[in-house]
């Protein structure tokens, strides 16, 4: 009976979150096959560590954290994060005016440093608040806010996207 409940809950989690976990994984590693492997591995570890899930409401964050750790373990090994001091102005040089806005935006998102892209993905796709993102990424809330601001400022330099206007009363 207990096993059936566990299986049923596990299946619900897989169906509810595999899509958004895949997209999170994709934007972490930027490789489709690796992204699927990460999702598979995440659920394997979730199944193995099922007892660690005390609160069903925390399941989503729990899965995101497992995936993030798995990505760090599999693809980075040495360092978990990258240098924050990046010249965002340089990003614009990698873009080209393609026919599709979405492709163009994806190129820009891909060109963002991962430390800026990741909180953006967690906020826009995961629906997390700055405080929740800080917890998942194990950084301060202030750092999350800075990265989100810089990410958006960089993306707004895309052709067709209005640049932030100068404000008089700074």
């Amino acid at each position, binding site marked *: 009976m207990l096993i059936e409940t566990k299986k049923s809950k596990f299946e619900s989690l897989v169906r509810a979150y595999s899509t958004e976990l895949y997209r999170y994984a994709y934007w972490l590693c930027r490789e489709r096959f690796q992204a*699927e492997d990460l999702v598979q591995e995440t659920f394997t570890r979730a199944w193995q560590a099922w007892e660690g899930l005390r609160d069903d409401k925390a399941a989503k964050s729990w899965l995101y954290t497992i995936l993030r750790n798995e990505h760090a373990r599999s693809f980075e090994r040495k360092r978990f994060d990258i240098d924050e001091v990046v010249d965002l102005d340089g990003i614009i040089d990698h873009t080209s005016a393609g026919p599709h806005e*979405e492709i163009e*935006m994806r190129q820009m998102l891909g060109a963002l440093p991962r430390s800026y892209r990741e909180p953006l993905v967690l906020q826009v*796709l995961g629906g997390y608040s700055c405080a929740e993102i800080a917890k998942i990424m194990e950084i301060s809330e202030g750092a999350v806010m800075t990265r989100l601001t810089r990410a*958006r400022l960089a993306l707004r330099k895309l052709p067709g996207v209005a640049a932030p206007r100068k404000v008089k009363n*700074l």
Partner: protein
Amino acid sequence: MNCFEFRKLLLTDPRVRTPEQERHLAGCDACESLTHEMEAFEARVHDALRVPVPEALADRVLLRHKIRAPALRAWALAASLVAALGVGIYFYRVPLGEHERVLTAAALGTNHPAVTAIAHVLHDEPRMLKENRGVDPVVMRAAFMRLGLNLPANGTTVLYFDKCPMTGGAGNHVVLQTPFGQVTLILVPDQSFGARVVVVDRDMTAIAAPHGAGGYILIADSLRNVRQTEKLLM
């Protein structure tokens, strides 16, 4: 709050609107204009981040864990995936309506019926679909008629129909297999949940709208799919 502070918060999280921000917006045309720009910008970012997901990913995960349901269900799922794939390729890109704002769950509030409905679909619907005991066409037609909605006919099948626990049993939970994919419809008679809203949460889109003597909530995996299904109901 001055413009700088307003814009700093806007760039940090465009979904959040504090009372202070609202007050600033009321008196600042420039920031109001920027806010509208940011809404369109966020929609572009959202669309771009939603990279295509491999077909039947969840099934492959479950297969690996050997907890898949019986073969019959697998065939039904495969058939629906093939149908959804065909239509999905055509309807992949979701344009935002010019006159309809798409809100996030955080902006709308987690207690709003549309947000609750998305959570209900994600958490409970797989189990409900498994337990479905059949559909009484007379009762179902009456439920649609009560709200003045059409029961979609051509190309649409009803996968599930029963009382809806989230409406206290007064409403109905309907799962439709439409030409645009699987769509959930919550019929809510005799209750009003305010103005029409469109909300996106966890890769699902919901439209909640008043209609007749109550309202309905449509939930699907894209804005286009809920809108197309909505047209079938009218």
